[in-house]
């Protein structure tokens, strides 16, 4: 035993930071026994897990999909021009870290014996393909081959088999060279060279090109460089790419050009980001609720510490450090969970990501920890400051609790932090600010609605009959409703928290459903899988008849005239367009022009008016004069009376800097036709239907040589139709796009699964809110049930009263949640996801009933031990653990 003299201590030493760190850690360790600390931990860990998992996953998915898109494109970067590329450019690309493959595309007549056929030649080098493999039959059935044909060999389209009766091993004449057919191409590794040529494909090696003698001055040859490399390498070339575009080189960049899956992928990414934010918001609400209980429980500790001589700063430091430790531990667990989640997700998706994905980077991890700290500061900060304001006198007068943090301060701080996180995640300040402002307005409205609802609950309770016996359901309902209505502040807080939770959960589920529907609508079962091109006018009726009954679905038949843009507003195009538009594909190639009296399906007018009946007549005279005249000059067709109305695709208009009222001149054969833009159209390029940049009214282009195009869906693989078409309409090119359609569908399945997994996380975060809120309200409920028991209520009545109270709370929250979800989803559809807003009637029934059931069951279950306590223990619980 120490002597009394020894026990008197020296005046306090200056406290060091390490001491407080240790003290906070010890405090936290002791505190782990408390339910609110566990709720805080779970909520923070979930926030980190959701954000890291989505971060990791999006990061890797993004890279994986870019790779896949790269495969469709033929490389991460594809450059194309009408002359060979300089060695200097190639060295620059190689120095930046790109792997190159040279390719030449041209159209030429090929022959076998007496049979001739125009073919689209794809001349590849030994590096081809940079990504993926072609599906080729080299005699052993169709197999994937990650190479092109060897020198002296040719791979051909199956159509050539029937058109000029080519078989494996046959010789085929290409220009002056003779090549041996060594493969039948089922599917090319890439779509480079793509649909620009509708002639059947012949692939050959670049070493044989000079022997063909096909490349002569003036011959139409496209040179391509396919380049593969990491995103950093591509980014490092940005400045050079801009210069190339200005010089008229066509640049296809995997970061920008994602054929066929752009909008779906973009929406999926936005959805994932949205779901991640919803999970973080819910975790934040759970943190806010658990913190209230944490602070209530620590008021005594704080008062005692004040009594023992702790300063306000020390108290702040102690509790902040304590929660800092908690955030750190939760971050580690959450990050591990996030890592595991994304690994699981990856395992699910391996089949869809044939290429190995790069390992997870450190950035999402850092973002996760930052999220935990931000959520803690934003959602717990103002409430925690209450501990600092505790008076030491509370040890003598228990009622001396510091005032709770102002609700406005709590909301303002949480909004600020959440807004910051939204900005960080979305990279869009305007959107974040708009969402935040909308959210705050909604909160005020919800507060009002909630208040009215609680009053209504009290009124309705008064109308309920007393019930015939002591534990009758109506009596329990009456008592439960009264308890809820009278505890106004606490109930309103829970009502708001639960309705936000239900709304977030419902919204993420709604958006998921609507996204999937939108994707399915975009590529329905009967999406055309064949394009028929080059249908001659005289064959038109016979062709339509052949298709009738044999195919499930057919798009309209569109006439097609090829024309080149030669002037914009009377100026040469290269001078008229903004710098960024100079390399645009539309200026370098002939465009497919069509005419039509009604807006094509899947097109939407975004500006101007569609053609009126007989719209072309004013311009017909001049355009026909131009068309028949040997010389038609651009200047001649400048005056308004010479022009015909045209409708232009909106995005092209943007790229070329054109708007309503501008004129475009096209050279068609030897003639020039000038059109004035009278409408702009938005269309869905992912639709697998014939789409046109420029549409004329009927009566202008008919006099030019034209063919027809259509797309149709053929469900039956064994259908004789393709064979019949090839036989009866030899000039018609039939293009099977089933493979591309398959690729796009695979990608959609892939993102759908990721969307579902993320939805699961949001649901978990929602349940954590319910848990935290119910934990926070335990002491109050314990006190109430203790009092009821003192006044003679039995187990059954108390159990029913609590069940009724939770169910009413869940029902009311569900109703408010439905309202909030409907409004928020409409806003997000219209403003962000580019989907048409729609009403969800089932939500108004499902959410209140589901809410009543969920809150009723969880709340009732969590209160079971309270009901078992003696009244003394229940009454003593208030203000303690």
């Amino acid at each position, binding site marked *: *035993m120490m002597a*009394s003299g020894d026990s008197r201590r020296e005046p306090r030493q200056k406290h060091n930071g390490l001491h407080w760190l240790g003290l906070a850690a010890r405090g936290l360790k002791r505190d782990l026994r408390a339910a609110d600390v566990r709720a805080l931990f779970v909520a923070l860990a979930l926030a980190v897990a959701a954000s890291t998992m989505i971060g990791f996953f999006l990061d890797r998915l993004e890279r994986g999909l870019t790779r896949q898109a790269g495969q469709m494109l033929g490389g991460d970067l594809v450059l194309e021009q009408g002359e060979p590329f300089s060695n200097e450019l190639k060295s620059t690309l190689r120095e930046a870290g790109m792997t190159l493959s040279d390719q030449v595309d041209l159209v030429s007549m090929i022959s076998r014996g007496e049979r001739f056929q125009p073919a689209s030649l794809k001349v590849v080098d030994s590096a081809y393909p940079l990504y993926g493999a072609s599906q080729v039959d080299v005699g052993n059935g169709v197999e994937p081959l990650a190479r092109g044909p060897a020198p002296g060999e040719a791979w051909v389209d199956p159509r050539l088999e029937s058109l000029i009766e080519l078989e494996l091993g046959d010789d085929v004449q290409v220009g002056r060279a003779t090549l041996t057919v060594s493969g039948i191409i089922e599917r090319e590794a890439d779509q480079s060279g793509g649909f620009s040529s509708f002639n059947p494909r012949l692939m050959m090696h670049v070493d044989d090109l000079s022997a063909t003698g096909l490349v002569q001055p003036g011959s139409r040859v496209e040179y391509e460089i396919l380049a593969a490399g990491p995103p950093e390498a591509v980014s490092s070339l940005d400045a050079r790419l801009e210069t190339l575009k200005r010089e008229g080189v066509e640049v296809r960049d995997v970061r920008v050009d994602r054929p066929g899956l752009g909008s779906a992928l973009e929406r999926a990414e936005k959805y994932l980001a949205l779901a991640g934010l919803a999970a973080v918001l819910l975790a934040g609400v759970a943190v806010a609720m658990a913190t209230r209980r944490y602070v209530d429980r620590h008021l005594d500790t704080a008062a005692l510490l*004040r009594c*023992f*001589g702790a300063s306000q700063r020390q108290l702040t430091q102690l509790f902040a450090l304590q929660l800092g430790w908690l955030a750190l531990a939760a971050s580690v667990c959450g990050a591990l969970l996030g890592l595991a989640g994304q690994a699981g997700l990856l395992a699910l998706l391996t089949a869809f990501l044939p290429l190995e994905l790069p390992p997870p980077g450190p950035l999402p991890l850092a973002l996760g920890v930052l999220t935990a700290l931000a959520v803690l500061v934003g959602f717990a900060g103002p409430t925690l400051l209450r501990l600092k304001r505790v*008076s030491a*006198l509370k040890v*003598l007068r228990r009622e001396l609790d510091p005032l709770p943090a102002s609700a406005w301060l709590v909301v303002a701080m949480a909004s600020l932090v959440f807004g910051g996180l939204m900005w960080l995640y979305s990279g869009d300040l305007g959107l974040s600010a708009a969402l935040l402002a909308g959210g705050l307005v909604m909160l005020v409205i919800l507060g009002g609605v909630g208040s009215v609802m609680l009053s209504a609950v009290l009124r309705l309770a008064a109308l309920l009959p007393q019930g015939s016996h002591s534990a009758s359901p109506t009596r329990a309902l009456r008592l439960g409703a009264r308890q809820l209505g009278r505890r106004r502040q606490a109930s309103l807080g829970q009502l708001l928290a639960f309705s936000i939770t239900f709304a977030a959960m419902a919204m993420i589920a709604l958006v998921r459903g609507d996204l999937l529907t939108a994707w399915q609508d975009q590529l329905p079962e009967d999406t055309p899988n064949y394009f028929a091109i080059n249908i001659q006018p005289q064959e038109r009726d016979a062709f339509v008849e052949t298709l009738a009954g044999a195919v499930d679905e057919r798009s309209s038949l569109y006439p097609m005239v090829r024309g080149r843009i030669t002037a914009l507003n009377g100026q040469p195009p290269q001078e008229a367009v903004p710098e960024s538009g100079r390399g645009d594909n539309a200026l370098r190639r002939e465009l497919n022009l069509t005419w039509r009296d009604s807006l094509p399906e899947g097109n939407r007018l975004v500006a101007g008016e569609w053609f009126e009946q007989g719209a072309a007549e004013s311009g017909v005279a001049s355009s026909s004069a131009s068309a028949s005249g040997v010389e038609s000059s651009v200047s001649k067709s400048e005056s308004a009376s010479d022009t015909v109305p045209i409708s232009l695709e909106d995005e092209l208009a943007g790229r070329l800097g054109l708007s309503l009222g501008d004129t475009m001149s096209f050279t068609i054969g030897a003639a020039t036709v000038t059109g004035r833009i009278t409408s702009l159209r938005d269309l869905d390029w992912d639709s697998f239907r014939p789409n046109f940049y420029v549409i004329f009214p009927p009566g202008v282009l008919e006099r030019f040589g034209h063919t027809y195009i259509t797309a149709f869906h053929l469900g039956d693989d064994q259908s004789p139709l393709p064979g019949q078409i090839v036989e009866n309409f030899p000039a018609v090119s039939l293009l099977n796009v089933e493979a591309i359609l398959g690729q796009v569908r695979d990608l959609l399945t892939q993102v759908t699964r990721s969307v579902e997994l993320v939805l699961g996380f949001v649901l978990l975060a929602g349940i954590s809110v319910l848990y935290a809120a119910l934990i926070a309200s335990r002491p109050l409920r314990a006190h109430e049930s203790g009092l009821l028991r003192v006044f003679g209520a039995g187990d059954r009545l108390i159990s029913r009263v609590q069940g009724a109270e939770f169910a009413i709370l869940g029902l009311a929250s569900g109703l408010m949640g439905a309202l909030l979800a409907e409004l928020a989803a409409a806003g997000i559809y219209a403003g962000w996801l580019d989907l048409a807003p729609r009403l969800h009637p089932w939500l108004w029934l499902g959410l209140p009933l589901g809410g009543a059931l969920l809150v009723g069951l969880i709340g009732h279950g969590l209160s079971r031990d309270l009901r078992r306590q003696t009244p003394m223990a229940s009454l003593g619980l208030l203000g303690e*653990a």
Partner: protein
Amino acid sequence: MAILGESGAGKSTLLGLLAGLDAPSSGELNLFGASLAALDEDGRAQLRSGRVGFVFQNFQLLPTLTALENVLLPLELAPASDNDARARDWLSRVGLGERLDHLPKQLSGGEQQRVALARAFVTGAELVFADEPTGNLDPATGERIIGRLFALNREAGTTLILVTHDHAVARRCDRCLRLTDGQLVDMGHEEVSA
């Protein structure tokens, strides 16, 4: 010293003022030679730090902390390597050396108040304030607690200011004051006995 008074006379308020837990709205109060009126809340806390101990009627033990952790609480405000040993030692002195890891709810009222006694003396306080320390205990347990409080007080050479309405307890103090109608009146032992 004992401060006697009826319920509602303001005994606890006075104790709070004396300990610097509250600030007087007027008048002058000195603690350890410093004017409490001149100090803000943090200044008064600094003054108390390590020099003042407390025993409360409702024990004021933190329910989630064990007996040992409760005694450690005031010590933890300052780093020292022997904090743990000191806390254990004081718990042994109050006869709870075997119940260090018990939570308050596992201890009886008397045992809880003994933990509070150990906590009041563990810092080597010069001044201990006790607010109705037996108010929540049965007479026999209360008697034992008071005996132990006085013994520890003697042993540690501390000044004890005790607020009570129990004359028997007050009689054991060197000096007794009565608080009536806001006035503090010195009482002789005879008057207390009467």
